[in-house]
């Protein structure tokens, strides 16, 4: 496309005065680029469609009188505990997973022997491949019973913190366990993003730090962490987005009954939005359907905001890093 001036490069142009800055467009080219563009636009249409159809289906619940909404106290009263439950579970996951993921990413990039580092990376990625239903079954059968001892201990010694006020659930199907399962599920995402940015740290920075006599940890603290901080933040936010929307693991693990409570180790927990939809939707009819779609719309907007912010941070960083 750039060599129009050289003779014979474009044999299909008869006119010698062909304008060089307007390349020849064949019919095949037009069809091909047209369909490629159409596919791209289709994606935008689908995303807009997701929002539009959710809104259309949610409207009956938005305009319905308060006493018709399940629970009988209006839409806000129905969704508020669900939003609370969603946020608590996602926050537990985030608090547990982020430091662990940063450490794992550091291990893979800077501590593991280089020959096996990539293999170890695959191993952590495998965590992301396990279907969420399997995590749910594992959570209720293995993690929940194993957590009872920990919960009892927390309740015994830290009862003055409202989070561990008790009474302790004997089954272990608590908010704490749901959050831990979510933490396992978002760990690979945060690790993958952190690993990527840690690897992008300019080698010269690292070698300069080591040459000045820094220990490995001092080198990491001085060159790797400052460079990767925004990447870690956005990775954590991507993880948060996943944790907010994760459905089946929470549906299976969490024992749902009751409203807002700060007690993380008890029997009565608020559901999360996603888990509530999965629990109620198969048997829902009429206005219940619309109410559930409305709660789904709330979830969609929250995750959309979180993910957009995360992507914005990643993209802004990419432009200034100069790593490419």
């Amino acid at each position, binding site marked *: 496309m750039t060599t129009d001036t050289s003779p014979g490069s474009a044999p299909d142009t008869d006119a010698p005065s062909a304008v060089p800055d307007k390349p020849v467009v064949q019919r095949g080219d037009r069809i091909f680029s047209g369909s490629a563009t159409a596919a791209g636009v289709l*994606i935008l249409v*689908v995303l807009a469609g997701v929002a539009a159809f959710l809104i259309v289906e949610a409207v009956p619940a938005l305009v319905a009188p308060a006493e018709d909404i399940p629970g009988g106290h209006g839409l806000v009263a129905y969704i508020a505990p669900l939003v609370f439950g969603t946020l608590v579970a996602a926050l537990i996951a985030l608090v547990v997973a982020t430091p662990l993921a940063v450490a794992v990413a550091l*291990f893979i990039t800077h501590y593991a022997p280089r020959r096996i580092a990539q293999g170890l990376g695959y191993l952590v990625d495998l965590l992301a491949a396990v279907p969420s239903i399997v995590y749910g079954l594992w959570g209720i059968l293995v993690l929940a019973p194993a957590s009872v001892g920990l919960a009892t201990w927390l309740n015994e010694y830290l009862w003055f913190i409202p989070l561990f006020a008790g009474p302790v659930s004997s089954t272990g199907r608590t908010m704490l366990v749901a959050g831990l399962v979510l933490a396992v599920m978002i760990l690979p995402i945060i690790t993958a993003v952190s690993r990527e940015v840690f690897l992008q740290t300019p080698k010269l920075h690292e070698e300069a730090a080591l040459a000045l006599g820094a*220990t490995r*940890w001092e080198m990491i603290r001085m060159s790797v962490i400052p460079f990767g901080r925004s990447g870690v933040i956005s990775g954590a936010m991507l993880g948060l987005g996943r944790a907010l929307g994760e459905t089946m693991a929470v549906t299976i693990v969490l024992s749902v009954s009751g409203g807002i409570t700060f007690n993380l180790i008890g029997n009565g927990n608020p559901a999360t939005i996603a888990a509530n*939809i999965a629990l109620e939707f198969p048997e829902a009819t009429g206005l219940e359907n619309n109410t559930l779609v409305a709660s789904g719309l709330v*979830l969609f907007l929250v995750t959309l905001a979180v993910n957009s912010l995360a992507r914005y941070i990643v993209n802004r960083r990419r432009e200034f890093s100069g790593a490419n």
Partner: protein
Amino acid sequence: MSIDTDRHSSDLATELAPDLRGLERRGQLPSWATPAALGAAAVVVGGLLAITGFSVGLFVVGTVVVFAVGLYVLSRVVEGRRKATDRLVTIVVTSAFLVALVPLFSVVITVVGYGITRFDAQFFTNSMRGIVGEGGGAYHAIMGTLIITLLAAVMSIPVGTLTAIYLVEYGKGRLARAITFFVDVMTGIPSIVAGLFAVALFTLLLGPGARLGFAGAVALSVLMIPVVVRSTEEMLKIVPNELREAAFALGVPKWRTILKVVIPTSIAGIASGVTIAIARVIGETAPLLVTVGITTGLNLNPFDGRMSTLPVFAYYSYTQPGVPPEPSLDRAWTAALVLIILVMLLNLVARLIARLFAPKTR
């Protein structure tokens, strides 16, 4: 190990600048100090636990804590604060990695352990029609999963690859940037929301209460398209520009260049990315739960009526087992095992494709 480089470089710095603060000559722990400290910690904690009552979890945690604290104190006395901190961080980071692997192995061991009970021929050949209690299988669910995933793949792969081609080869300006951004955002759509979208769409088209396999496939492709776009885009980007320019210089039109040069070069990577995307959606439960529902019998027509799928089958077998519960729970675990095998196989195939047919750039 790169501990040696580390030690070497700091030795070098000490020689070059002996007066630097904090770099004064200090003793150094011998290289066997670390394993020795670990062994000593294990013995100490093991001895203590032998008195109070043994538990594997407490033993491992206790050993690591005693090891970390002990080595830190030892190193602090002999080597100084900075080296001691370095050793402490190394222990913390390494144990964090090991902690992260615990759930992976625990999940695999649990699922294989429970799932193997019903991993028999009957499970793969029978449906659940008319089954109460013992027996039955997930033939109908396996077929449902394969049909719906195939449909989703058929819808997602052309759209995804064409979008990637647009972004890499044609896209410039605001539209391309918008598509890139929203594809990224789309990867974060919760799967249940994708399911609700499909339900809302088909409720408007077919009336309330519509459940059909195709709706599930639509929901899955909403989740799958962004993954296909991202991976294909990465693969197209690493095709060297020289190849394109050589084709252009020979007078080949752009679309033929893409079809005959760019795509053949990157086909292995694209295929591997598509396989990963299939692996991602084949285990999705929530969207299928709300769009496809469940049946006990075989339904091979995705455009009419409820179908059964493996993840939903596992969910209902576990949460609504009936009386007696054991046979149903066993089926749930075997379904989970089959699912995990499918996903791992797809991942393995993807890696193999990527490795064996790596883009030939030279």
